[in-house]
C-alpha cells in the first residue's frame, strides 16, 4: 500500500513540473479522439464536414473536460493556490499605501513586542538560565518581622549546619561574591572580579565547562584550594584557545592558582558577573559560634526531584529550630525578628527585594501590549475595509459558482503574504531595537549581560496579530453568507458611498484607535512624569566634576591588621592624595569606602544611643557605614548641618568620633543637638561631632530605610571594604582629569589597580530603573502613536479613495473644493471627537486610581491631559488633511470615465 502511495505522490509531483506538457498532450489526445469520431461518422455515411460538426456537438466543452482531468491529477488545487498568490502580490502593488501601512504595522508590532518580552524575561522573569532553573533555590536566613519574605545572607556556621542537613536538596553550594583579585599579567596588574565558591555550586547550577573541567571537592583538597575557573570573557582576553591557558598557573593576589576550566559566558551567580571562580576554603575558626552573626554569604541549592518549594521551606523552618537548640543565644533575635531559614526560587530572588524594577519592566510590557492591540486594530481594520471594498466582486464570483472555501482561501493567502512581508521587516525592527538597547546602556544592568531574541515570543506575537487579521478577513465573507447574494450585486453603485455595516465597523475602528492612543499617551505621560520626579530629587551630593577612583588594597601587598593599615594603607592614601591635589584643576580630594548611590559595598551595623532606650520589641537602628577622610563632605558637595568634619587629628590615639546623617538626627534627636552626645556601636562609645545633610546612599530601586554613620578613616582599620575610594572634585575636561589622576595614583604605587568612574555615570547606573522605563515608555508610546496615525490615515484615505467617484459627481455638479474638504473632514472629526472623549474618560478613571501608587506626582494633572489632547488632535488632523486634500485634487473627467 505504501509503495502505491509513493508512486502516486511521485506522479503528482511529476505532473506539477510537467504541467505544460500535460496541457499539450491533453489537447493532442482530444484532437485524436475527435479524429476517430469523425472517421467513424464518415464511415456511417456522413460527409467530412457534417461529421466534424456532429463530433464537435457530441464532444461538448473541452475546457470543462480539461479541468476535470487536471482535477484527476490533483494539480488544480496547486494551480489555484498559485493564482491566489499571484493575485495577492498584484493587490499588494496595486494598493501601495495600504500595503505599506499593514506591513509597517506588523513589523513594528512584532519587533517591539518581541523586544519588550525578551527584555522582561531576561531582566525580571528568568534572569538565570541554569539547567532546571525552577528547581534551583537561593537558601538563606529571613527575618519576617523586619523584611517580610525576602531572603538574606547567612554566616559560615549557618552554611555548615545546612550542608549537614540537606534532606530536601540534591546538592548545595556556598557563594562568597563580590571579591576582587589582582591578576598578575607580568608587566601590569588587572583586577578580576572573583566569586569564592564550593564545588557544590557546579552541581547546583548544572553548568557545563567551555573547556577543561570544574573543580571537585577532591581537587580543592589536593590543591589546598589553589585551582581556578576562568570566565569565557577573561579566557578570550588572555588569548582563548590558542594560548592554552587551561592547565597553566595564574598569579592571583600574589598566589599561584592552576587554571582547570573555563565557564561559559552565560554563567553568573549573583548580581555581578565574575571573571574568576576559586574554591572557598574554610578555616577552622570560621566555624566558631561567634561567627554566626557575620551574614555575608549566599547559599544556592537544588531541590531533590519531587520536593516542592513549600516542603523545602517547611523543612528549613524546622532546621532553624534545631539550629536554635545548639545556639540558644539566638532565641531572643528570633522572638524579635521571627528569624528562620528560608528559600526562594533563584529566578525570583534577584528581583524579590527590588520591586520597583519588576514594576517598571512590567509596565513596559503593558505598554507594548497596547501597541500590539493598536497594531491588530490597524491590520484588522485595513483588511476589513479591503474585504468590503471587494464584496461585490466576491458576491459575483459566488453567484457564478465559486465556493466560500475558495473565496476565503484567496483572502487568507493575501493575509499570509502580508504577514510574511511583515515578519521579514520585523527582523529589521528587532535589529534596531537591539542596537537601541545598547544606546540606553542596557549593559549597565549588572545581570543583563547578553540577551538574545527568543523565537517563540516572535511567533506568539505573530500568531496574535494573525488571529486578528484572519478574524477580520473572514468578516466580509460572513456577511456574504448571511445575506442574499443578489442584494450585494444589485446594490451596485450604492456601495460606492459605503454600506451601513461597513460604515459602522469603520467608525468603531477609528474610535477605538483614537481612544487607545489617548489612553496610552496619558499613561505614558503619567509614568514619565513620575519617573522624572524621582530623578529631580535632591540626592544630597553634587555630580558635576566629581570622579571616583576605587583602589583595592589586597592583603598580599597591604597586609592586614591595624599596624599594616596605618603603615601601608594610610600612607598610600596620604601620598596619593598629595599627588592628586598637586594636579592643576583638582579642587578637592578625599577618600571614602564607597561611592554614594552605588549598589556595592553596603555594610550595615546596628547602633544604640546614650540618650535613647529601645522599646520592647523595637528593632535596633542599623546604619550604613562610611569611612571617610577629612574634606570628604566638601569634595562631594554634601553640607554639614551641625558640628564639624573629621580632622587630621582624629586618629587611633584620640577619642572615637562619628558624624551621623540628617535622618538619624530627625528620628532620634528631635529638638536636641546631637553634637557632643555619644553613640554606641560594637559596644564601643563614640562621640558625635557632626550631622551631615541627607544623602541618597543607595540606588533608587532599593528600599531606603536606614541611617548612615560616617567614621574617620584613621580610627578604623577594618571598615574599609578592602579598598580605598578616592573622590576628587575637578574642573575642566573630566576625561583628561580622570587620566591624569589615574597616572598620579599609579606613580605612587604602580602595582595597584584602579577602577575609575565619574559620579555622573554612577548616577546613571543607579537610576537605570527610572531612566530605562522612561525611555522605553516614551519609545513605545511614540510607536503606538505612529501606528495609530498610520491606521487612521489608512482608514480615512481608503474611504476617500473609495468615494472618488462620488466626489467626482459632486464636483461635476458644481460642488467646490471647500465643500468636498468639509465633507471628508466632517465625517472623520466626529469619529475622532468620540475617540478622544472615550479615551479621556477611561484614562481619567485609571489615573485617579493610580494616584496612591505614584505618590510623587498628581496623576490627574490637567497639563498631561491637555498636552495629550493637543497632540492627538494634531496627529488626527494630519491623518485627515492629506486624504481630504487628495480628494479635492481629483480629475473629474477621469474619475467618471471608469
Amino acid at each position, binding site marked *: 500500500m505504501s509503495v502505491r502511495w509513493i*508512486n502516486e505522490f511521485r506522479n503528482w509531483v511529476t505532473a506539477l513540473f510537467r504541467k505544460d506538457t500535460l496541457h499539450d498532450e491533453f489537447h493532442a489526445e482530444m484532437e485524436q479522439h475527435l479524429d*476517430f469520431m469523425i472517421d467513424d461518422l464518415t464511415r456511417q455515411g456522413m460527409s467530412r464536414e457534417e461529421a466534424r460538426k456532429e463530433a464537435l456537438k457530441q464532444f461538448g466543452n473541452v475546457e470543462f*473536460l480539461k479541468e*476535470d482531468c487536471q*482535477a484527476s491529477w490533483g494539480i488544480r488545487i496547486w494551480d489555484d493556490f498559485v493564482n491566489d498568490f499571484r493575485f495577492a502580490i498584484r493587490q499588494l502593488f496595486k494598493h501601495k499605501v495600504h500595503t505599506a501601512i499593514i506591513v509597517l504595522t506588523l513589523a513594528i508590532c512584532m519587533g517591539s513586542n518581541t523586544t519588550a518580552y525578551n527584555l522582561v524575561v531576561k531582566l525580571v522573569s528568568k534572569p538565570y538560565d541554569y539547567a532546571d532553573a525552577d528547581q534551583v533555590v537561593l537558601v538563606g536566613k529571613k527575618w519576617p518581622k523586619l523584611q517580610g519574605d525576602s531572603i538574606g545572607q547567612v554566616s559560615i556556621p549557618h552554611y555548615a549546619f545546612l550542608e549537614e542537613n540537606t534532606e530536601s536538596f540534591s546538592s548545595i553550594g556556598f557563594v562568597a561574591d563580590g571579591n576582587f583579585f589582582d591578576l598578575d599579567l607580568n608587566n601590569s596588574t588587572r583586577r578580576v572580579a572573583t566569586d569564592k565558591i564550593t564545588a557544590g555550586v557546579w552541581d547546583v547550577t548544572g553548568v557545563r565547562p567551555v573547556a577543561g573541567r570544574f573543580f571537585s571537592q577532591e581537587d580543592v583538597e589536593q590543591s589546598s584550594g589553589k585551582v581556578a575557573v576562568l570566565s569565557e570573557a577573561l579566557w578570550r582576553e588572555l588569548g582563548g584557545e590558542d594560548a592554552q591557558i587551561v592547565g597553566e598557573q595564574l598569579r592571583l593576589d600574589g598566589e599561584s592558582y592552576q587554571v582547570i576550566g573555563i565557564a561559559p559566558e552565560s554563567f553568573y551567580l549573583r548580581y555581578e558577573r565574575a571573571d574568576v571562580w576559586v574554591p572557598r576554603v574554610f578555616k577552622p575558626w570560621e566555624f566558631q559560634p561567634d561567627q554566626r552573626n557575620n551574614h555575608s554569604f549566599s547559599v544556592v541549592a537544588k531541590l531533590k526531584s519531587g520536593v516542592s518549594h513549600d516542603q523545602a521551606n517547611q523543612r528549613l523552618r524546622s532546621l532553624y529550630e534545631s539550629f536554635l537548640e545548639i545556639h540558644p543565644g539566638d532565641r531572643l533575635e528570633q522572638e524579635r525578628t521571627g528569624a528562620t531559614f528560608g528559600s526562594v526560587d533563584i529566578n525570583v530572588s534577584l528581583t524579590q527585594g527590588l520591586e520597583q524594577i519588576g514594576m517598571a519592566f512590567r509596565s513596559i510590557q503593558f505598554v507594548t501590549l497596547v501597541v500590539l492591540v493598536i497594531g491588530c486594530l490597524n491590520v484588522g481594520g485595513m483588511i476589513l475595509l479591503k474585504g468590503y471594498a471587494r464584496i461585490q466582486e466576491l458576491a459575483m464570483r459566488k453567484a457564478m459558482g465559486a465556493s466560500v472555501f475558495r473565496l476565503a482561501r484567496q483572502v487568507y493567502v493575501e493575509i499570509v503574504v502580508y504577514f510574511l512581508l511583515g515578519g521579514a521587516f520585523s527582523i529589521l525592527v528587532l535589529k534596531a531595537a537591539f542596537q537601541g538597547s545598547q544606546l540606553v546602556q542596557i549593559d549597565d544592568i549588572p545581570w543583563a549581560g547578553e540577551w538574545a531574541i527568543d523565537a517563540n515570543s516572535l511567533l506568539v506575537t505573530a500568531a496574535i496579530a494573525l488571529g486578528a487579521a484572519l478574524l477580520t478577513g473572514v468578516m466580509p465573507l460572513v456577511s456574504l453568507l448571511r445575506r442574499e447574494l443578489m442584494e450585494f450585486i444589485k446594490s451596485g453603485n450604492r456601495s460606492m458611498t459605503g454600506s451601513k455595516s461597513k460604515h459602522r465597523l469603520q467608525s468603531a475602528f477609528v474610535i477605538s484607535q483614537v481612544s487607545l492612543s489617548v489612553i496610552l499617551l496619558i499613561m505614558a505621560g503619567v509614568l514619565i512624569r513620575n519617573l522624572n520626579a524621582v530623578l529631580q530629587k535632591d540626592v544630597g551630593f553634587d555630580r558635576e566634576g566629581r570622579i571616583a577612583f576605587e583602589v583595592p588594597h589586597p592583603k598580599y601587598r597591604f597586609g592586614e591588621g591595624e599596624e599594616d593599615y596605618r603603615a601601608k594603607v594610610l600612607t598610600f592614601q596620604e601620598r596619593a592624595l598629595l599627588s592628586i591635589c598637586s594636579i592643576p584643576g583638582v579642587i578637592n580630594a578625599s577618600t571614602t569606602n564607597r561611592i554614594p548611590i552605588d549598589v556595592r559595598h553596603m555594610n550595615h551595623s546596628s547602633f544604640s544611643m546614650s540618650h535613647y532606650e529601645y522599646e520592647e520589641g523595637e528593632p535596633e537602628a542599623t546604619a550604613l557605614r562610611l569611612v571617610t577622610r577629612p574634606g570628604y563632605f566638601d569634595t562631594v558637595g554634601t553640607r554639614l548641618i551641625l558640628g564639624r568634619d573629621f580632622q587630621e587629628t582624629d586618629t587611633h590615639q584620640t577619642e572615637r568620633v562619628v558624624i551621623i546623617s540628617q535622618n538619624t538626627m530627625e528620628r532620634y534627636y528631635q529638638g536636641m543637638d546631637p553634637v557632643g552626645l555619644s553613640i554606641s556601636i560594637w559596644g564601643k562609645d563614640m562621640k558625635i561631632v557632626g550631622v551631615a545633610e541627607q544623602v541618597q546612599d543607595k540606588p533608587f530601586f532599593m528600599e531606603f530605610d536606614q541611617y548612615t554613620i560616617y567614621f574617620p578613616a584613621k580610627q578604623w582599620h577594618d571598615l574599609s571594604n578592602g579598598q580605598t575610594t578616592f573622590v576628587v572634585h575637578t574642573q575642566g575636561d573630566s576625561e583628561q582629569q580622570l587620566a591624569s589622576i589615574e597616572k598620579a595614583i599609579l606613580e605612587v604605587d604602580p602595582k595597584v589597580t584602579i577602577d575609575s568612574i565619574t559620579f555622573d555615570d554612577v548616577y546613571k547606573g543607579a537610576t537605570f530603573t527610572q531612566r530605562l522605563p522612561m525611555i522605553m515608555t516614551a519609545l513605545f508610546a511614540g510607536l503606538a502613536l505612529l501606528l495609530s496615525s498610520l491606521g487612521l490615515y489608512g482608514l480615512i484615505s481608503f474611504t476617500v479613495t473609495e468615494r472618488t467617484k462620488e466626489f467626482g459627481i459632486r464636483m461635476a455638479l458644481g460642488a467646490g473644493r471647500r465643500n468636498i474638504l468639509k465633507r471628508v473632514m466632517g465625517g472623520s472629526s466626529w469619529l475622532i471627537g468620540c475617540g478622544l472623549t472615550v479615551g479621556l474618560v477611561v484614562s481619567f478613571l485609571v489615573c485617579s486610581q493610580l494616584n496612591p501608587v505614584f505618590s510623587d506626582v498628581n496623576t490627574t494633572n490637567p497639563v498631561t491631559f491637555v498636552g495629550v489632547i493637543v497632540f492627538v488632535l494634531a496627529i488626527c488632523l494630519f491623518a485627515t488633511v492629506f486624504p481630504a486634500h487628495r480628494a479635492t485634487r481629483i480629475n473629474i473627467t477621469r474619475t467618471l470615465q471608469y
Partner: protein
Amino acid sequence: MPREGKKDVLLGTLDLLILRVVSSGPIHGYAIARRIEQISEDVLTVQQGSLYPALHRLEKKAFITSDWQTGETSKPVKMYTLTVDGNRQLEEEKKHWQDVSNAVNLVLRQA
C-alpha cells in the same frame, strides 16, 4: 449522446471496465470507449467526460501508463498499457465486483 436503450456505465465500475479493456494490450482512449460499447452490445456507453478523467486518475495512481505511438495513422496516438500494480488492482476489483453482484443477485432471487 446516449441513445435510447443505452445505459451509462454503473457508478464505480468504470475503472474496473477500463482496467479490463486495457489489460488486453495497448489501446487508445477512443477505442476503449468503443470496445466497452461493442462488448456490452451497446448496452453500456462511456462518455468522454467521464472516460478521460478516469484514465488520468488511473494513470496518476500508476495502474496504467501511457505513451505516444505511431500506429495505423500517421499521427502519434496516446496508448494506454496496464502496469503490474494495475493488474493487481484489476484482480482485486474483479473479485470485489463478483462478490457484490453475487450478493445483489442473491437478494434479487430470494427476497
